[in-house]
């Protein structure tokens, strides 16, 4: 499947050919300069080897033209590499707006994943080919790193913070999934497979009888929690508005009581649930109870997913 003696491993995402193109360019310049250096060393070593009765070599003249020329040429190559690398990196860092969101929680030593319809899996990820997928990831304990070599993507997964990763698989198949940030005893066991399916097969898989039974979607679960935890008593435009209205808040700028502004992204929402006093919205009293220790990472993700879904409702 993955012949390690081929120059390139399997390419299975839209990003892979772009990364590989830079890689091939880098291999080419590396081979060129290595051979050049080795060639010069060997040629000079033989051509100028010490002979009996040889003349004393002259001192090299202090002249920086060669260094300047070499440095200039190198600078050009490096700037090309920098620009090219940055361009692909930026594309890889920005998920398209229509990406399908899958929630990922890392935990010593397994990956827990949840699909938009609520289907969960562990250490396997089923995705449709040809569709941009965005992973929203967090960790329950230490730092992990989500890595799919065939897609050329990797992103650290941190406790207390959400990180994102996106990719678009190009062809159905079975690809390795690894954790690449050392995370303790069974670090090397923390991985599995990514199954890229045709969109039709993916739909079939979503409702299929294998795996965990169908449950509510993350948004539905979040809504249920929102009610169970009593959030709607305050965060409701019709309730006297003890807390800010959450409809349409996601992704927008919020003015805080101390006069600063913050963008209401996943990290801000998460922080405001766990530790509401940290960043109080202007015009509201710091009265919200602390939910740290009450909600799990999975539930937090669901609550955030629900609040994000309210953003759509307002438009």
């Amino acid at each position, binding site marked *: 499947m993955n012949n*390690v003696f081929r120059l390139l*491993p399997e390419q299975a995402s839209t990003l892979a050919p772009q990364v590989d193109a830079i890689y091939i360019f880098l291999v080419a310049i590396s081979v060129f300069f290595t051979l050049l250096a080795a060639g010069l060393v060997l040629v000079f070593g033989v051509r100028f080897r010490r002979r009996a009765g040889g003349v*004393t070599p*002259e001192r090299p003249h202090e002249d920086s033209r060669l260094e300047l020329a070499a440095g200039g040429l*190198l600078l050009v190559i490096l700037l090309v590499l*920098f620009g090219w690398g940055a361009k692909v*990196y930026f594309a890889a860092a920005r998920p398209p707006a229509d990406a399908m969101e899958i929630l990922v929680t890392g935990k010593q030593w397994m990956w827990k994943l949840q699909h938009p319809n609520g289907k969960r899996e562990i250490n396997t990820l089923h995705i449709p080919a040809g569709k941009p997928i965005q992973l929203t990831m967090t960790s329950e304990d230490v730092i992990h790193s989500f890595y799919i070599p065939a897609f050329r993507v990797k*992103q650290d997964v941190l406790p207390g913070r959400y990180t994102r990763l996106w990719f678009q698989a190009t062809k159905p198949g079975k690809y390795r999934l690894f954790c690449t*940030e050392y995370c303790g005893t069974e670090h090397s066991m923390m991985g599995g497979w990514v199954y890229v399916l045709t969109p039709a097969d993916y739909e079939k898989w979503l409702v299929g009888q294998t795996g965990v039974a169908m449950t509510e979607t993350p948004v539905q679960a979040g809504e249920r929690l929102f009610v169970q935890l009593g959030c709607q008593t305050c965060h409701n435009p019709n309730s006297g508005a003890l807390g800010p209205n959450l409809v349409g808040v996601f992704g927008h700028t919020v003015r805080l009581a101390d006069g600063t502004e913050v963008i209401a992204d996943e990290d801000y929402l998460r922080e405001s649930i766990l530790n509401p006093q940290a960043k109080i919205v202007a015009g509201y009293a710091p009265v919200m109870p602390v939910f740290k220790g009450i909600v799990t990472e999975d539930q937090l993700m669901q609550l955030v997913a629900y609040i994000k879904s309210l953003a759509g409702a307002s438009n």
Partner: protein
Amino acid sequence: MSHAALATADDTPKSYLSNRFSIQSWLFTVDHKRIAILYLISLTVFFLLGGAAAAIFRLDLMTPQADLLQSETYNKLFTMHGIVMIFFFLVPSIPAVLGNFLVPIMIGAKDVAFPKLNLLSWYVFMAGGLLALGAIVRGGVDTGWTFYTPYSSMYANSHVILAVAGAFIAGFSSIMTALNFIVTIHKMRAPGLTWFRLPLFIWAMYATSLVVILGTPVVAITLVMIFIERFFGFGLFDPALGGDPVLFQHLFWFYSHPAVYIMILPSMGVVSELVSCFSRRRLYGYTFVAFSSLAIAVIGFFVWGHHMFVSSQSVYAGLIFSFLTFFVAIPTAIKILNWIMTMYKGSVSFETPMLYAYGFLGLFTIGGLTGLFLSTLATDIHLHDTYFVVAHFHYVMVGGGVMGFLGGLHFWWPKITGRMYPEGWAKFAAIVIFVGFNLTFFPQFQLGYHGMPRRYHTYAEEFQILHVMSTAGASVLGAGYLIMAGYMIWSLFKGKRAPANPWDARGLEWETSSPPPTENFLTTPVVTQEAYAYDKPSVTWVPTAHPIPEGHRV
């Protein structure tokens, strides 16, 4: 040092090795040369321990399953390998052994500026080493040498505090040595030895010392933070208490990336000496090579973020760190050009030290070029924390650092011990080490691009063939080191007596006997030419004493 005693004709100088023999005369010595030997012995022991750990887990990696070690043992072994090799071998290697021995001699001084501090630095180093070994004896550490939080601060169920304390204490030893070198180089140069007559090895040691003094306190503070977090649960790194798990990485790499230059700049200094001597020619672009060491030392402090492109750092931070990282490549690449151009129209010979310089050039070139793969943002996403990185830093730190150390050790071995090593065996070992090294680490570049993550105890079966090649190479490499250890020990007892200047080299260290007398020179040398005057005859000071010309007294 102001009134150097003029030696009379009947004074047969005793060497630093032969003047006293008791254990106390070694353990309480303030002679920089004896302290260098103390370091050489302790570093050799650490190198053997670090190497043994590598040998065991390399054997385990022959197969994809865990059939030799348990996961926990494997993790502890690679951690031990990393901690011992970085903190207790590579960082101190050239400065503490060759630097301690040579810096005063090369500048015509009797000793370093603070001899007692120098001795203290060895004791502090040993204290750090013993604490770290204590952690291993008591059951080991499984964090990896990078001690990333929150794993190390909250989750690792092993002797993290002992190991961290060991690294912390060893850091003070580096600081003491660096401080000593800076003052010595500024204040104790022999009359006539201007900055631009200095050997490039001295420039390299100077630049290295600056990095050590500026960087080491930061890692020391960082390690203390782990201690505070583990002991008192302060919440520095624990997000549940408002800490930042990534903060540690910023602080850690602020030291540990420059630490790579602590390992490599001294090596570059050694290689400059070797290439110049065995080409019988002043180094091409002396001034550039001298200043580029300083440039690398300075730029090295601004690139730490390239270890963190996928750490959740912002894309703009990534952009800036990538940009700055590329700039380190320029002085480095031009240095390689300078070494090569020195051979052009030179008179090149191939004694063992020159073979190591050749080895350094080859391996360090590959190490440097593969660094570009990691500073380029898009390729780093894929390569980060894979075997590609493992291969890259071994090419730089072992291919560069160790080849430089071994080249220097062979070059100055006659000066240090007063004995010659067997040239044939030494050449053979140098070639075996070079071949073994490439067999071990070259396959790992391919492993990495194909997705093999680092620090994996078990792995996907398709990677096995490359792992088998790597393990086979490691046994060749290990055999090379053992051959070397064998003939070096043999030479101590049976080696031919070394003349003062076996390579017909220039530079003050060759102007005194081998091994040098306790006070290095019988009289204070007066320098009238630079360290690379290969177009002029050697100013032989040995063994007769020269009176100090009027007007040159210090």
